[in-house]
């Protein structure tokens, strides 16, 4: 008899989500005797389609013993959990039913999580928390995550744990509304949103990243004030969580397998395809300055440049900042003074070598050698470009003057081959001798170790590249080692002049400005190498290229590479690496991420392991912590949400998603 009553009860609505072990702490208008009784907190869909949060006292329902241990369970619409009602309460059934607390989602205004995420309070009226529940098992996080599937919420500005219900609504409308508010899509929003949601199932990474790349601009250039930006990020996080919950089935399956896979053969998570953004435009750049010309949002500027580079029209200005010639926080007036001072400084250094007489030069072989080396290289730098072409081209003299002045600026380093390659695009863009010199100084600061007398800097980078490749593309790394190419010397040219010889003039400007941002990690230029090599993996391995063929093949890639594709896959590889469960401290150090084992010194790089796969020992530590919402990329300001085995990283303002 009791069963029939139960079915009757359940026929009227569907449990969308239930959580056991929830204590009713307080409830306005309820007798105190009801307090502190244990029950089940549910999200329920009523027969008429409306939804509510419902708390049912345990007295009313006895859960089957086999499910009692579970903290929570998703109850889908078909396979409902079987429940029986114990005989002794049936007489009081009506009373018990009266003890059920219902909070219609339409009425819900606010909820908050307190006490270490174990307590949840609901309010349908501003200023009053009518119901307070205490989660005895675990915490309220999962409940909140599910609740947010059915509500559009926003965290309040003063309290991160308090959620305002923006609009309780059907999921599609919620998504529609969110996107409409963000004004990203010009097309019919319903179609876009549903395409997006259905794409999540098939192409989760690509879809997420595609959608969120479009958000970047909004985040920076919506009309929000500083606080407003935060809200957009929150909203984005909510949307992401919501959309990702659709993936739950697949992710939970892979999650359970994940750990075993690691111990056998570490594999990287799938590579997200990250579309490039549009270049930083004049309007955006102007908007990023305050009235006096200070750059307000430096990290934001860098993020934008990382995503899409710089529009050519403002390159000559922006490069001065990226190359540390102009400090970001200087006003126009201060910059003017700075430029004046730097101009004087430049010409005084130039005068130093200019005033060396022929006699002096004859008796100063070191100076003479350097001068002749500069001369030789200047005469063969980018001569096919119209700017440097032709006999007696005056720009060659400027190149020469800048490089000679640099010898005086940094006599210990002097002139090393490759420097003219570094300088030429700067002079070509800036046109001005003094500006080009100081930008060159800034660029050299970034890559000075490339020109070490003993080439230690180059060797170190080649070693790090080998380590990264071993992690990101082990098959290729193994092949290279077998073919005596494990030292990666064939990438020497790439690294020495930062791919100057590999890309067209237009493309190298784009690549360099992106690399100068220093995002998304240290040594991103090494990931550019990995990206280029990984794209050639099939050819190199399937044709069994040996020592010479590898070098030839790599050299012949020059001028055939697509800069956007390379940047995009390098970024994808970055995300693969940092979200890999078996990420090692060695790799963390290369990428400038705090190693887990802090005792590991940065200088004690072990020899590249060419025959063994990276140790899995640190990965176990990572796994543990990975489940606990922490770590990775601590230098970056990131929010990490771990959800059903899905790790979503929201880097401040710019948004992308990762899967662990």
């Amino acid at each position: 008899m009791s069963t029939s009553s139960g079915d009757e009860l359940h026929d009227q609505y569907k449990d969308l989500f239930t959580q056991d072990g929830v204590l009713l702490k307080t409830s306005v208008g309820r007798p105190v005797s009801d307090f502190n009784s244990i029950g089940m907190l549910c999200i329920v869909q009523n027969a008429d389609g409306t939804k509510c949060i419902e708390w049912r006292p345990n007295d009313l329902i006895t859960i089957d013993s086999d499910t009692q241990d579970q903290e929570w369970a998703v109850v889908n619409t078909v396979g409902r959990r079987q429940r029986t009602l114990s005989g002794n309460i049936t007489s009081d059934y009506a009373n018990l039913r009266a003890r059920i607390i219902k909070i219609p989602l339409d009425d819900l205004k606010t909820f908050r999580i307190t006490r270490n995420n174990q307590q949840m309070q609901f309010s349908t009226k501003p200023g009053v928390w009518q119901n307070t529940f205490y989660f005895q098992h675990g915490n309220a996080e999962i409940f909140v995550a599910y609740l947010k599937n059915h509500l559009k919420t926003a965290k309040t500005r003063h309290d991160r744990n308090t959620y305002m219900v923006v609009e309780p609504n059907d999921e599609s409308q919620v998504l529609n509304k969110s996107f409409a508010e963000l004004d990203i899509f010009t097309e019919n929003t319903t179609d876009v949103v549903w395409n997006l949601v259905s794409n999540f199932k098939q192409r989760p990474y690509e879809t997420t990243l595609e959608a969120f790349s479009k958000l970047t601009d909004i985040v920076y250039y919506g009309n929000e004030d500083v606080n407003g930006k935060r809200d957009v990020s929150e909203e984005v996080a909510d949307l992401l969580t919501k959309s990702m919950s659709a993936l739950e089935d697949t992710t939970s399956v892979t999650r359970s397998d994940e750990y075993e896979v690691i111990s056998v053969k570490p594999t990287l998570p799938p590579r997200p395809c990250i579309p490039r953004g549009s270049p930083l435009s004049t309007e955006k750049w102007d908007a990023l300055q305050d009235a006096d010309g200070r750059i307000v949002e430096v990290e934001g500027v860098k993020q934008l440049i990382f995503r899409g580079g710089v529009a050519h029209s403002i390159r000559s200005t922006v490069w001065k900042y990226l190359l540390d010639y102009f400090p970001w926080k200087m006003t126009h007036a201060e910059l003017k003074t700075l430029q004046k001072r730097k101009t004087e400084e430049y010409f005084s250094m130039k005068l130093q070598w200019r005033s060396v007489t022929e006699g002096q030069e004859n008796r100063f072989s070191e100076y003479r050698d350097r001068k002749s080396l500069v001369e030789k290289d200047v005469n063969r730098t980018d001569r096919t470009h119209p700017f440097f072409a032709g006999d007696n081209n005056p720009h060659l003299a400027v190149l020469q003057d800048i490089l000679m002045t640099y010898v005086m600026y940094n006599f210990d380093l002097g002139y090393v081959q490759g420097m003219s390659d570094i300088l030429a695009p700067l002079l070509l863009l800036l046109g001005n001798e003094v500006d080009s010199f100081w930008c060159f100084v800034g660029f050299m600061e970034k890559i000075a170790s490339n020109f070490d007398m003993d080439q230690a800097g180059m060797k170190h980078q080649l070693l790090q590249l080998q380590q990264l490749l071993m992690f990101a593309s082990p098959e290729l790394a193994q092949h290279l080692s077998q073919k005596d190419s494990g030292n990666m010397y064939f990438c020497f040219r790439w690294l020495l002049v930062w791919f100057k010889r590999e890309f067209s003039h237009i493309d190298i400007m784009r690549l360099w400005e992106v690399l100068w941002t220093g995002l998304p990690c240290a040594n991103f230029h090494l990931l550019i190498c990995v990206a280029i090599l990984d794209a050639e993996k099939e050819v190199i391995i399937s044709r069994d290229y040996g020592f010479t063929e590898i070098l030839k093949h790599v050299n012949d890639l020059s001028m055939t590479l697509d800069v956007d594709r390379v940047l995009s896959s390098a970024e994808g590889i970055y995300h693969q690496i940092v979200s890999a469960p078996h990420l090692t401290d060695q790799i963390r150090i290369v990428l400038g991420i705090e190693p887990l084992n802090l005792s590991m010194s940065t200088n004690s790089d072990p020899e590249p392991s060419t025959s063994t796969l990276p140790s899995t020992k640190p990965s176990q530590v990572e796994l543990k912590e990975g489940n606990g919402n922490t770590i990775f990329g601590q230098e970056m300001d990131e929010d990490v949400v771990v959800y059903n085995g899905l790790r979503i990283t929201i880097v401040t303002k710019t948004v992308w998603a990762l899967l662990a």
Partner: protein
Amino acid sequence: MAKTYDCLFKLLLIGDSGVGKTSILFRFSEDAFNISFISTIGIDFKIRTIDLDGKKVKLQIWDTAGQERFRTITTAYYRGSMGIMLVYDVTNEKSFENIKNWIRNIEENASADVEKMILGNKCDLDSQRQVSKERGEQLAIEYQIKFVETSAKDSLNVEYAFYTLARDIKAKMEKKQKEASNPSGGRSGVHKPTLNDARKPVTWLSRCSVL
């Protein structure tokens, strides 16, 4: 796939920065010259197959960056080279003086019996000449190395230089092969045919084709 050559020789071009190593190589491999070449960063090689006494000899010629700083990297590619062109610029005294250093560099990094040749390049620029032909010849005698003045620009003696070096390598290999197949007459330490080698006809060809 059938081999398009009988034998492969690995050659190396070394010398100071800007003496014309890449130009010499370009002249030999493409029969062209470009005054505004770019400097070589790192290392590269070009291939040309020549006919030497009826045998097709594939020359794999390695071109290196000249600046001393890069030597730690470039010397890694010396290994296995059978012939080395030491190049200086007749209009640059320093590059000539440095030939001695380059020879020392070879002794440290290449095999002892590598064939060598000295090239005095840019001999077309007679008005700017700083190193006379006689001094070049004198140096070559001192080291018992063959010498020739070249002009990559005017295509003077470049072909001759490579053919000469290749022919000397071939002669040396044939001599070694002979000694190896006739142990009583040859010096010790020379490669002897192993069981593996025995399956192939014992000629210098078989030896270099496995390279």
